[in-house]
């Protein structure tokens, strides 16, 4: 406790420098927290849309109702399939046309009859989907099979790129935060050289001299992290209504904020970063 009170005394004595550095660390960590938030929601998108969860089986022209029913039953019996729904040409037209009157007036024969398959959760990896498609193609009355692998592959690639960019950005931001704290503590060290000299003179142990500077760094980092997540939470919840409308329509999901364990980890991580930056400065600049 005494270490913290000595660190706080140091913070109070150079309050302007400390405010500037907390703000700088907060800015860096705000960027990092934003990236973490984006990564978390991209992960959610990836889980929802990243895997081929459905498959469309196009039926041959002239397939009879019995053949279609037989095929649907065969498809339903496959272990990878959770449901198989027949979509008639008329239904296909209605789905595609929507409110478009011209399209709605087109002949139903222009639209192929399909069986829409929903896949079970464990069967959505690319190799199993491809194997399933090959088996379905061999069945009678099947004209073609669409696995949507191209679209999901592109989405996965986009999400993977996003995650990599977030990671690289995060590492850069972390290094910046460490450098900011390190330089702040260095300034603090120079400003308090007389204090250090006096402590050494009266017989303070090296640990006694160093500890408040390490605590000061941890306070800076932790304080910066708290400010960063508070600002991010404010911005997120202020914009949530708009985000819900946009993302809900586009992706069919609601954006989520960082969970409490992640927030706690963020603050602790900020404190750890601060202590690390401080330790670097102390090691480099404080000879005791």
């Amino acid at each position, binding site marked *: 406790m005494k270490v913290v009170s000595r660190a706080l005394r140091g913070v109070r004595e150079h309050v302007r420098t400390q405010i500037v550095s907390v703000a700088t660390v907060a800015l860096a960590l705000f960027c990092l927290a934003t990236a973490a938030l984006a990564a978390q929601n991209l992960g959610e998108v990836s889980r929802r849309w990243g895997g081929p969860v459905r498959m469309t089986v196009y039926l041959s022209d002239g397939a009879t109702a019995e053949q279609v029913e037989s095929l649907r039953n065969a498809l339903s019996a496959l272990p990878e399939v959770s449901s198989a729904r027949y979509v008639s040409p008329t239904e296909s037209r209605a789905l595609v046309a929507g409110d478009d009157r011209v399209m709605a007036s087109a002949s139903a024969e222009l639209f192929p009859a399909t069986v829409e398959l929903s896949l079970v959760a464990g069967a959505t990896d690319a190799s199993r989907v491809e194997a399933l498609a090959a088996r379905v193609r061999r069945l009678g009355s099947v004209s073609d099979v669409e696995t949507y692998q191209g679209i999901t592959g592109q989405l996965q690639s986009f999400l993977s790129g996003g995650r990599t960019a977030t990671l690289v950005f995060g590492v850069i931001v972390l290094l910046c935060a460490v450098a900011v704290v390190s330089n702040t503590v260095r300034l603090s060290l120079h400003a308090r050289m007389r204090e250090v000299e*006096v402590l050494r*003179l009266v*017989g303070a*142990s090296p640990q006694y001299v160093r500890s408040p500077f390490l605590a000061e760094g941890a306070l800076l980092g932790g304080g910066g992290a708290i400010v960063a997540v508070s600002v991010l939470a404010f911005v997120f919840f202020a914009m949530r209504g708009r985000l819900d409308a946009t993302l809900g329509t586009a992706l069919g999901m609601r954006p989520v904020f960082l969970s409490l364990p992640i927030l706690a980890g963020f603050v602790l991580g900020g404190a750890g970063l601060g202590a690390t930056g401080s330790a670097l400065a102390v090691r480099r600049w404080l000879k005791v």
Partner: protein
Amino acid sequence: MGRPRIGAQFGRQFRPDGHFDRSAAHKPILVLDGVVKVFRADAPVLRRVDLTIERGEFVFVTGPSGAGKSTLLKLVYRSETVDEGRILFCGRDIARLTDDSVPFLRRNIGVVFQDFKLVPYWTVFENVAVALEVAGMPSRIIRSRVAMALERVGLAGRGEDLASVLSGGEQQRVAVARAIVNEPAIVLADEPTGNLDPVLALDILGLFEEVHESGTTVLFATHDRSLLEQAPQHRLIVIDDGRTIEARQGLRAVGGALDAQRHNRDADDAVSTARLPL
């Protein structure tokens, strides 16, 4: 008497083996034995200095600027280390102390400097209390000890003042209070009156006299002749050209002391040490 000396308690702590040596109480408090300190190879600051200081002595160390007075004191509180020879403090060779033990040594030594070395943004109380805080003393004891120390130096009731608002003389009194608050075995003063006018200088000398009268050993480095003349009863060591000479007992005594010190030195060295500034 009554109160045990804090210095005696810490004395056992700075010993690497952790055991209290009872015989140390009967030994000289400080012995310099053939001490050599060299910063530049062609001009050693101290050349085989031999010096013994008994417990309770008040010793002036004087000599021209650059003669090695401050270096001698720095060697005693281990801000510098000897190149040759030994320095025995309470019977222990401080040159052999590990770095971890140096803080414990310093808790037994009070040091006062010409530039006060106070933290300007700390209060008077904090500047004095720091000498006890580093030893982990309970705050209740710290409060009472600091109050007593401030009273001894004539600053009772000034504990809440910032050090930066004090006059030079008052700042030096705070520095003295810090040096004596943990009742160290010895107080080292490195030109403590150098930044003060003559009246204040005498005032501060009087303070050290009082500290000495309470039984503390004082090693007082100064080049101010007027101060030396004010306290002729005290032992006087002259440092010149890297060597120490007992000066107060007169030149013949000085010669005898030098003979005793020089039995291992060459004749050229002996001639050069006969030049006395006083």
